[in-house]
């Protein structure tokens, strides 16, 4: 029986602070917190030269460290680990292109954009669109829509003010 490919994705700093979390399985809040805590501790305990994959509970964890952030994905046992590693890298590239030389601060201050980008890229735990160009184009369009939505509001406000 096929299960959901990616179960969740976590981003956390070297001090163990969770920056981003995207869950593709329905779990209660308590369970999520517990899993995040456990996993963060396990990964932070690993030494730099160690393998990028580890088995944890009955999932495979694929993680990579970029500067001060750990990107961590949980996938099913049979999944291809290397390709997941590349999914992580693709996501980082997308962030990089969008924010221009992304750093942790960018993600902290614009986390909703980070989530948008992730959602354009992955849907339901699967890679939706692997072309960087297309994903970024979609994000741009979404941004434009948002600005348009904001603009008329200010006009209305003016009217309202009178």
């Amino acid at each position, binding site marked *: 029986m096929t299960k959901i490919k990616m179960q969740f994705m976590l981003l956390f700093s070297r001090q163990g602070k969770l920056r981003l979390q995207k869950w593709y399985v329905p779990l209660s809040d308590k369970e999520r917190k517990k899993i995040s805590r456990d996993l963060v501790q396990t990964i932070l305990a690993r030494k730099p030269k160690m393998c990028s994959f580890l088995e944890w509970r009955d999932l495979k964890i694929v993680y990579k460290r970029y500067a001060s952030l750990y990107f961590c994905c949980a996938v099913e046992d049979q999944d291809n680990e290397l390709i997941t590693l590349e*999914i992580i890298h693709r996501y980082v590239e997308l962030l990089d292109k969008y924010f221009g030389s992304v750093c942790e601060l960018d993600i902290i201050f614009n986390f909703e954009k980070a989530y948008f980008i992730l959602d354009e890229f992955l849907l339901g735990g699967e890679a*939706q669109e692997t072309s960087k160009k297309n994903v970024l184009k979609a994000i741009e369009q979404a941004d434009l829509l948002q600005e348009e939505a904001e603009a008329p509001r200010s006009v209305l406000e003016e009217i309202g003010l009178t």
Partner: protein
Amino acid sequence: MCLALHCIANVGSREMAEAFAGEIPRILVAGDTMDSVKQSAALCLLRLYKASPDLVLMGEWTSRVVHLLNDQHMGVVTAAISLITCLSSKNPDEFKTCVSLAVSRLSRIVSSASTDLQDYTYYFVPAPWLSCKLLRLLQCYPPPEDGAVKGRLVECLETILNKAQEPPKSKKVQHSNAKNAILFEAISLIIHYDSEPNLLVRACNQLGQFLQHRETNLRYLALESMCTLASSEFSHEAVKTHIETVINALKTERDVSVRQRAADLLYAMCDRSNAKQIVAEMLSYLETADYSIREEMVLKVAILAEKYAVDYSWYVDTILNLIRIAGDYVSEEVWYRVIQIVINRDDVQGYAAKTVFEALQAPACHENMVKVGGYILGEFGNLIAGDPRSSPLVQFNLLHSKFHLCSVPTRALLLSAYIKFINLFPETKATIQEVLRSDSQIRNSDVELQQRAVEYLKLSSIASTDVLATVLEEMPPFPERESSILAKLKKKKGPGAVSVELEDGKERGELNGAGERGADAAIAASNVSTPSPSADLLGLRSAAPISGSTPSAGSLLVDVFSEAGPTASSASVNDDGFLSSAPPSAASEDPAPPLPESEELLNKFVCKNNGVLFENQLLQIGIKSEYRQNLGRMYLFYGNKTSVQFTKPVEPLVEGGAQVQQVINIECLTDFVDAPLLNIKFRYGGALQNISLKLPVTINKFFQPTEMAAADFFQRWKQLSQPQQEAQKIFKATHGMDTEVLKAKLLGLGTALLENVDPNPENYVCAGVIQTKAQQVGCLLRLEPNAQAQMYRLTLRSSKDTVSQRVCDLLAEQF
């Protein structure tokens, strides 16, 4: 539109599926949908499908969806392929057409120049994600039969393998990762097909190269892939050539997960030729291994040692070494097994005794060693008693020196060994009796030890040598049976019990409103959904019985009467007194005769339908039954009271502490006297248990209560005046003659209690009709209690004499 689809996909609940299942496929295949919307639609559909597969009916859309594979837009293909993979794994036949499309797509990608795919080229690797997904899709199917398609595919795979040999086009790790991702996926496909020897060998060689790669990731993955490769006959030999590298990896890798993979691979590649070497290596690894993996390693070593032992003295050595190195992690099954083997094989007994003796002489001896030693010396100490260094007294002293360091079960075992010594070596009798007599034994706080000490002491003093010899005769060889170690290893290696059930429960949606189990719901959600006929109580005919029942693993033995989960099997019972198909099947052995107490148990259930049918230390069986006219259904709940699993000769297992439910559908064809027999066979800890019980199905269960006025009653009573139609019994009351209790019992019998019929208000009058397939038998009943004499007179009249007699007998027992 996309956002909406996104939302649906992320929530993906059943209601959403119901609402949108029709819409989304339409959006997906419509010509005018935007590409990005198509992508989202595909994945959204996937999500809904996974959540509620029955609601998403693919029928009409199948060919269109498959056709998406040929779409221009790569993004759409990427998304669609995930959908198709999932659907294919569920309904492979329907989606067969996708195989050829997939192959052609794949070959186009693989052979494309790097400029073709433009944005979909990732660090000089063309469309890596898409390639991986295509390869994954192909793994759902066996190798294509069509020659052309197959040829193309093989070509593809070879190209991929070739590319791996080429120098990398970029120094970046991403390039190699992407390239290797495709490579590993291709290798999995090759392993899955298992039919192209040269591809397999090439794959194996490629992996062999990776074993020594600089990058840890690649080494890890190579070890893992090789594990699966080792099981294929074509490549097994090729895998074995790398044994030295693997052993080296085992010793020198810094990352524990890589070491673990190496150990797994050694286990997989083990066969007769290298067994000794591998076991030796694994033992030395065990000394420094991580605590978390020790138990698994121990089991593996034990299995390998047993499987490939040509010379059983080597096997004994290995196990004893195992105990010495990792004693704490040697589970019970392992040392039971070694003792079984030693007892079954005469040639190794002497050697075992000697080795154990020497091992015990070590100053720090693990308790498991003492257990094994105690047992073996007790049985076979005489084989080494000739040597003055291991004379009986020396043996005894050696064992006794460890006595006080051991836990209670070990001490109990040692006491048994002592009495065996008395039998084997009469010269030690006095010494041992002293020990047994000492206060620390016969006044020991532990009941078991005390009992053993006292009994053995008495036995040794009273019994003559012949009796002693008979009692303490050597243990007979154990019957050959499957190693419980393997079962234990499978259990350990299997996915973590809790989370798997969690997934299953969520996947199948709610089951029979079992949600009110609260916190246990997730864990208690069991696997198989009900076979359709069982919805309607009476809809079932004597359909072909499906033997075996699925365990609701993890659910607790707490409440016998709650529905532990959907039904799993049905067996039809023809009430002529024998079961037409025994639920645990196995026509091989005769069922044991019914237990003596089954008659009593039967009586218990004449007037009630629910309760505990049988209970002993291992097993509790509860029943819940309901009847309507001539049909009935009985739910049997088997609860495992121990912490060890039961295994049936036929699968499945009942986990320790778990409960299994079984449903029996009953049809009454004609009236009957004998109750059907229920024969239960299972294995507990290696011993075969055989229990026979009478199923509490009695003729009165098929009573239909009939109300009638006094006049009617007496009229019918007169009609049934022939002597054979009446059965009467006068008997002493065994229980109290409380009115309410009596009334309850009569109602429980299934008849209608008629008021104001009998002129004597003390008497009870009942009427009912027994429904059988052959006929209906009207039954009238009169119970006259005599409080002073504490006796009853029971009169039964019905149109069939056997019925009267039987009901009369049944009822007489109740009072």
